[in-house]
């Protein structure tokens, strides 16, 4: 039996648990600080390699992952640093991966586009647009078959909505009622192509409706709104209610990749509009207005986060490079003798 499409409540109330608020703030700022540090390391030429920055979109990863358990699954995209951090991947090992070091999450083999840590449910970032979604679907199927109550999240961009694979997954998730949450980060662009050119509907989430997948359209720069939508979707998924599709309207502050000048294809006015709705600043204003977290506490968290990121850089720089002989290790799983 398929559920009929219903809109989720999008009324964003601020969670009243200070521990949740502290977690949110810490991770919003940790992603921002980590990414800005990566920018400076790229600018100074210390780091190399393809890098897609998550700055601006932090509220999506934090709002969604804030509602997940450690053993829930996440499949990411090429723009995956934020998802990794929010899911609990150690930033020192992430930084070491960007440095191509043996201590990196992927032992230097994956780099920015493939950071993974399965011990915290991060199944990996992927450079093939749309390809994370069926992987998340498979994890949800696996959770259902193993009767574990785990849920899976597929993060993907507006650009991935061009790929048929996403719709194939919507269909399968619906007919099998899988514990899968589709999170579409609509940041208005796929590379230089604006969403209104590439896609025929303005609200992308409405496309889930015909598949009988409930959907919500969320201000993705409002971490509380994302959290509320994720809350409803996770509850439904965990209790056999099937998939949900959440479209988060958001914006990436930098270019498509480090080095891309976004003003080639978008305007400064548009950038200023979205920067004016910055998720971190709005969080700070909201909690100050309600007297929930003291300014001093926010500052303390900010300072801790800066130290965490500096520690990550020190860890990466002190780490050894992989042995060149590892170029063809890990290709296959070592065979056990009893075949």
């Amino acid at each position, binding site marked *: 039996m398929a559920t009929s499409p219903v809109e989720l409540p999008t009324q964003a109330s601020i969670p009243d648990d200070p521990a949740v608020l502290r977690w949110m703030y810490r991770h919003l700022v940790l992603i921002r600080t980590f990414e800005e540090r990566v920018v400076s390391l790229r600018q100074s030429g*210390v*780091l*190399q*390699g*393809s890098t897609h920055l998550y700055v601006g979109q932090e509220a999506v990863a934090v709002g969604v992952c804030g509602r997940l358990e450690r053993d829930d699954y996440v499949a990411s995209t090429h723009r995956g640093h934020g998802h990794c951090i929010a899911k609990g991947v150690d930033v020192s090992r992430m930084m070491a*991966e*960007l*440095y*191509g*070091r043996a201590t*990196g999450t*992927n032992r*230097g*083999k*994956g*780099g*920015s*586009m*493939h950071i993974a840590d399965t011990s915290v449910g991060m199944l990996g970032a*992927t*450079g*093939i*647009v*749309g*390809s994370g979604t069926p992987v998340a679907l498979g994890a949800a199927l696996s959770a259902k078959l193993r009767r574990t109550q785990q849920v899976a999240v597929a993060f993907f961009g507006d*650009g*991935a*909505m*061009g*790929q*048929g*694979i996403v719709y194939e997954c919507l269909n399968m998730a619906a007919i099998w009622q899988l514990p899968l949450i589709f999170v579409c980060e609509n940041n208005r662009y*796929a*590379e*230089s*192509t*604006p969403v*209104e*050119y*590439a*896609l025929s509907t303005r609200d992308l989430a409405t496309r889930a409706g015909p598949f009988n997948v409930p959907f919500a359209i969320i201000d993705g720069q409002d971490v509380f709104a994302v959290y509320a939508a994720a809350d409803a979707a996770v509850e439904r998924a965990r209790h056999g209610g099937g998939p949900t599709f959440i479209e988060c309207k958001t914006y990436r502050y930098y270019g498509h990749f480090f080095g891309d000048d976004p003003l*080639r*294809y*978008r*305007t400064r006015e548009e950038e200023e509009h979205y920067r004016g709705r910055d998720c971190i600043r709005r969080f700070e204003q909201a909690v100050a207005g309600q007297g929930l977290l003291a300014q001093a506490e926010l500052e303390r968290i900010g300072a801790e986060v800066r130290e965490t990121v500096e520690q990550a850089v020190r860890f990466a720089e002190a780490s050894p*490079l*992989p042995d*060149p*002989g*590892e*170029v*063809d290790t890990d*290709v296959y799983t070592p065979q056990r003798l009893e075949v």
Partner: protein
Amino acid sequence: MAGRQLQFSRAENEALRQEMERDARVFIMGEDVAGGAGRAALGIIDAWGGPMGATKGLIQQFGAERVIDTPICEMSFIGAGVGAALTGMRPVVELLFVNFVGVALDAIMNQAAYLRYMLGGQVSVPLVVKTAIGAVGMAPPNGGGSAAQHSGSIYSIFAHIPGLKCVVPSDAYTAKGLLTAAIRDDDPVVYCTHRRLLTTSCEVPQEPYALPIGKARTVRRGRDVTLVGIGRMTGVCLEAADQLAGEGLQTEVVDLLSVSPLDEDTVLEAVRRTRRLVVVDEDEPRCSVARDVAALVADRAIDYLDAPVKTVTGAHAPVPFSGVLEVAFVPTPERVVAAVHAAMRDEGR
């Protein structure tokens, strides 16, 4: 008068422009081939001009009907390229990185390549799939390249498929000539740009010209050993040849250019004369073009060989990210020289 120097990516751009001028049936389709489409009202119409800049300026000259930005949907727009090619157009479709072939192989193999045969010769599919290959080769210690899904060469997949042609230029001159030839060809051709060649320059004639598909080019004459290179590996062979010259060895270098069809005659002729062969290929070794060439020589020229045939290839692994590992993956002149030494050491065994 010294010839005009042109960058690789400009040479590709010139080939596209000249063929679009020459033949109204030619059009380009792919992600961000113009970029910023739909923003003309903001004065933005050619923001990217292709992810590597190869299509820059073409939309201004030919308009949005002949330089078409697509959504991200390779299976469909390359499949649509097949349909357009069947019905009187000559599409050039862009598959950004060759590893993305995973999402478009049906259109390329089961449709574009097989159709003519399956339909008993009724049709031709004059489609060009333009794609990027190769590891970027970042120097250690920090960071690396683009990793497994954006660094493959994997043209051996195309060489395996009957009905498909596949060319791999080695410099700006062969880029222009082979892209032109690919567009003029009546069959589907995969055209592979090695990303590390994009910023290299050489002498490139202004006027349109096509290099024959299926024809290798001898770029250095020698009598002691033949090196066969593919794409960027041709330059690696030339560097190795310089080093070998210091040891008194005269090296022949064959630039394969076309991995399908294969120019058997040029390879065999060189091997019969030099009696030694090393094939250099950045692609992974198993079922590779390198080993295909080695098998050809084993089959047709074994009696001429003084030494065993050696291949120098990528590792049997996806391309790694870290600079040290990437450097270990990609063949270098030193590895080529070592392979020549190994072949000569094994002589007569």
